[in-house]
């Protein structure tokens, strides 16, 4: 059972003045859940499929577009590819609010760094900043990221987990549909692919997530990052779930409703002899 801690002696008081992070409220929430049956609120999470690959001279990221809130689809065409810098993009899975906030904060940090140093931002800088931050929050920021970029040292692809661990890989998938997407990746990935072949592969992997994972759906977004052109998002690169039938609404013919009486009222009266002042 959880006890709310009260200071017992001067050591505890000293401890409480040491500063740093306090996870006291996490303990309190567990206590409330156990004792009073109060359930904490839920946030919008994107049960997601995201993936990324490194090909010959580009990094390609891709994502589905479904956002869910519990069992409900909250957004059918949301954007999960986030801009960090001209040459660095990131695909996110997890809590929607956390992802948006984290990537926007990183975008601003990196832009300030770019202006201060006058150099192109590097992928490893972003990875270190993200992982330090996520580690500091001990997994309570629900961000699972696939980060890709092309900098002065070449193409890079990383995956970052909510607890702050990182892996550098040639191909990766994350989110609830990662298993379905990884099956495609493991079978078909090859490091000498062309950009066009790469785009087809990531789209196929995401499609496999869209069709085989309940948490994923909607369309396929792709982002190609090259040395010269930087990042380029191809929004709705594939639309495998387009609406086939649209509800048809014919206009009602005149006379469907009989006119019982007709009244015309004058709502605005216009005076014509207005004198303009100078």
């Amino acid at each position, binding site marked *: *059972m*959880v006890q709310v801690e009260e200071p017992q002696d001067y050591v505890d008081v000293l401890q409480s003045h040491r500063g740093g992070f306090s*996870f006291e409220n*996490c*303990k309190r*929430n*567990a*206590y409330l*859940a*156990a004792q009073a*049956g109060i*359930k*904490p*609120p*839920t*946030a919008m*999470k994107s049960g997601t499929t995201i993936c990324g690959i490194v090909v010959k001279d580009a990094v390609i990221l891709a994502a589905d577009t479904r956002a869910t809130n*519990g069992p409900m689809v909250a957004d059918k065409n949301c954007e999960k590819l986030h801009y960090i810098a001209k040459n660095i993009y990131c695909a996110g899975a*997890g*809590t929607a609010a956390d992802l948006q906030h984290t990537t926007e904060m990183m975008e601003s940090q990196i832009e300030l760094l770019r202006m201060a140093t006058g150099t192109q931002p590097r992928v490893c800088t972003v990875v270190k900043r993200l*992982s*330090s931050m*996520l*580690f500091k929050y*001990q*997994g*309570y920021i*629900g961000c*699972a990221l696939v980060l890709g970029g092309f900098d002065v040292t070449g193409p890079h692809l990383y*995956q970052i*987990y*909510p*607890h*702050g*661990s*990182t*892996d550098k*890989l040639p191909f990766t998938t994350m989110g609830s549909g*990662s*298993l379905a997407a990884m099956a495609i990746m493991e079978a078909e990935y090859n490091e000498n692919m062309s950009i066009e072949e790469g785009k087809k592969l990531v789209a196929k992997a995401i499609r496999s997530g869209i069709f085989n994972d309940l948490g994923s759906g909607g369309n396929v977004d792709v982002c190609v990052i090259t040395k010269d052109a930087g990042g380029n998002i191809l929004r709705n690169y594939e639309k495998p779930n387009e609406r086939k039938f649209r509800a048809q609404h014919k206009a009602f013919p005149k006379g469907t409703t009989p006119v019982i009486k007709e009244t015309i009222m004058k709502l605005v009266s216009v005076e014509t002899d207005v004198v303009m002042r100078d």
Partner: protein
Amino acid sequence: MDFLAPRSAQEQMVRHVEEGCPYRADDVMAPEQAVSTGTTIMAVEFDGGVVMGADSRTSTGQYVANRASRKISKVHDKIFVCRCGSAADTQALTGFVVNYLGQHAVELGKQPTVNTAANLFKMIAYNNKDNLLAGLIVAGYDDKRGGQVYSIPLGGSRIRVPWACDGSGSGYIKGFIDSHYRPGMSKAECLEFVQKALCFAMSRDGSSGGVVRTLVITKDKVEESMIEGNKLPFGP
């Protein structure tokens, strides 16, 4: 969250959530599932250096998050660390030590000792033992004491040992190491011994697998090698 050794189902609950707490899977207040290195790692001293070895499997619950990971990380030119436990914790810990030891080496103006590196790891691991899940084996070579292996298990103690073995797969091979290890092995002998032991652990432990990565550190050089998963000396 996955722990080092498979334990009862109740103990495998997410950290920070108290026992019996009715958290749901979609609950935002609960931390995300952690990535952990259900691992086999080891390091062995030999005549003139050390051999370090590790498998390459990183898992999230039942899913292999990375099948070719590197669990042997560089700390300094001739000092390396084998990591097991939570991937995030051990990576962060290593990052801090790399930073501190790098500064220390600049102030010192020469290569830092393995003893110093192990002590830094121990200090941080011990001071934060309530919040960390990190098992470490620090090994390397310095001119003062030659090849050395330090084991820093979960509680944050630091012990110098002739050989160390940790992770969920370690239990399967400790007897093998006990019976076959002898002081004063040659480099080739020691490397073969480590590779063999890791293969045995990987074939018995579900949380260990992939390829065998080894590192040989001697006075003159650091040699890295890898055996692919389908070319192991002992198969499943």
